[in-house]
């Protein structure tokens, strides 16, 4: 099933539900490609890619509902579906796992019956793709997590998660670019600044980027922090 199902989302929005993708990485990257194409069009206020959806809100002064619907259907039908192969930048993310930077790390080891070393190796061993950005400013959904690391979200979300925190939930791992409330299990933190305030691209992560985590010690964490402006 390659034709998306399009439904209204409020009085000036539509959402396309995608189908026929073999993984969340594939559907998420496709959704982002479609959303990017839509954002260039006049009358589109927002085009937001979820994991397997594209939501679009339009300006009723410039587009009527039929035009907006057609625009979404057209973008979803004419965007190449194989977006995984599109070249993207590779981002190195040093992570200090556990301790004060990863408050859920020990509990996760116990729950998954993994030694700390094994958990670090499993999480940092595989390259990930940025599936989409959202929830919180610059928050990157990365996938997909190795099977053995899949855990549900926290029952009660934290009110405050520090910028740079690296979390896991379901089949994803994610990075909080700025402080945020959040329900993902936090296993570490990167000292790398993820927010640089550039006008249209204020965060270093973009959909499609390849992300590689690299374990660092607390002293290396401190050194990297100091070296940044």
């Amino acid at each position, binding site marked *: 099933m390659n034709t998306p199902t399009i*439904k209204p*989302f*409020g009085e*000036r929005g539509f959402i396309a539900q995608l189908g026929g993708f073999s993984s969340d990485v594939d559907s998420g990257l496709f959704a982002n490609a479609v959303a990017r194409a839509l954002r260039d069009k006049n009358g589109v206020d927002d085009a937001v890619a979820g994991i397997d959806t594209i939501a679009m809100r339009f300006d009723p002064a410039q587009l009527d509902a039929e035009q907006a619907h057609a625009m979404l259907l057209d973008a979803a039908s004419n965007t190449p579906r194989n977006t995984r192969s599109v070249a993207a930048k590779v981002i190195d993310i040093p992570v200090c796992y556990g301790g004060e930077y990863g408050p859920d790390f020990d509990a996760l080891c116990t729950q998954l019956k993994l030694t700390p070393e094994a958990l670090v190796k499993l999480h940092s061993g595989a390259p990930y793709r940025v599936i989409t*950005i959202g*929830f*919180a400013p610059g928050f990157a959904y990365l996938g997909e997590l190795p099977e053995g690391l899949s855990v549900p979200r926290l029952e009660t979300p934290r009110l405050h998660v520090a910028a740079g925190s690296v979390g896991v939930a379901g089949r994803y791992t994610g990075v909080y*670019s700025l*402080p945020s409330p959040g329900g993902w299990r936090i296993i570490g933190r990167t000292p790398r600044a993820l927010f640089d305030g550039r006008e249209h691209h204020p965060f270093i992560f973009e959909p499609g980027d390849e992300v590689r985590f690299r374990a660092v010690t607390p002293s290396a964490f401190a050194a990297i922090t100091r070296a940044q402006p």
Partner: protein
Amino acid sequence: MIATLHQPGLQTTIQDAGRRGGRHLGLPQSGAADRVSLALANAVLGNPWDAPALECTMTGPALEFEMDIDFAIAGAEMDARLNDEPVGGYRRIGAKPGDRLALGAAKAGARAYIAFAGGVAGCAFFNSVSTYIPAGLGGLHGQALRAGDVLRSRNTDTMAPVDIPDALHPNFGHDWILRATPGPDAEYFNPKTIEDFFSTPFHADRRGDRMGLRLIGAKMPCEDTPPMKSSAMFPGTVQCPPDGAPILLGPDAQTIGGYRRIAQVIDADLPLIDPARRSDLVPAHQRANRKTDKFAAAKADCLIYFRFQPSLTVAQFQPSLKRVGWPPSPHRTTRRAGRLTPHPSRSE
């Protein structure tokens, strides 16, 4: 320097119209929760309707002026006093250095707006100085204002001030009806649940904030469905977590989330959400509803006119007012809409 804050109030932040077009970066819109009141406070000063102003929550601030400047208050009734003398809202008031302005607890409504001629300065990010507290964006320092903070003027050019007719002042005293369309996940709810949603009176849990309000009244259980993958949310989206208590998302709504969306409050009614915190509210199916608070909705629609349709003429604007059924006479529509228009030249 406009003024120094002596007491911050419960949560006083700098807000404008918010960040637009940043949801794909995870940036919430933010901005004034009640855009109508923000616009009215600015309009009486001749500011652009979306000039940054102070948004006061439940209990207002106390501040001392440092310069000669005009200010105006709109929104929740907070017993405003200038040098201990009561001052009314929706009109221009001149302040001198040393004058003290204090707002008390809200008697009706939830948020009041204090606008200053020329607007308040703040840290701009993504074309807005709106404060988004969770990530520390905008405002003076990304957070609610604190005692000792100094407000500075943004020195925005002002236009001819607008008189706000009494009839346009919001009335926060009664129950509210919010109009909504069924959400993109409505099909995952039992039809009876959807019907209940659009007919049950809810009230908002007091712990609500700018991200969202938990609605108390009836549970909206979601059918047993495959888990939803994270998908877009907007201000006005009503999402239903597994416990069935719906959450109505506000101006700081997250950009994507994982709970089923039962409904979407229409844009024109978003400014009503916050005042409604203090009373009951009933979501009303947009198409089914013809007996809403048409007047308030029409005022909100004027804002949509400001924000989304700045190049339209009043004649083109009329259909959207008609859609909300206000007011009965087309002639009055033209006049009112014209008076609220930021560029008088466009409003024949």
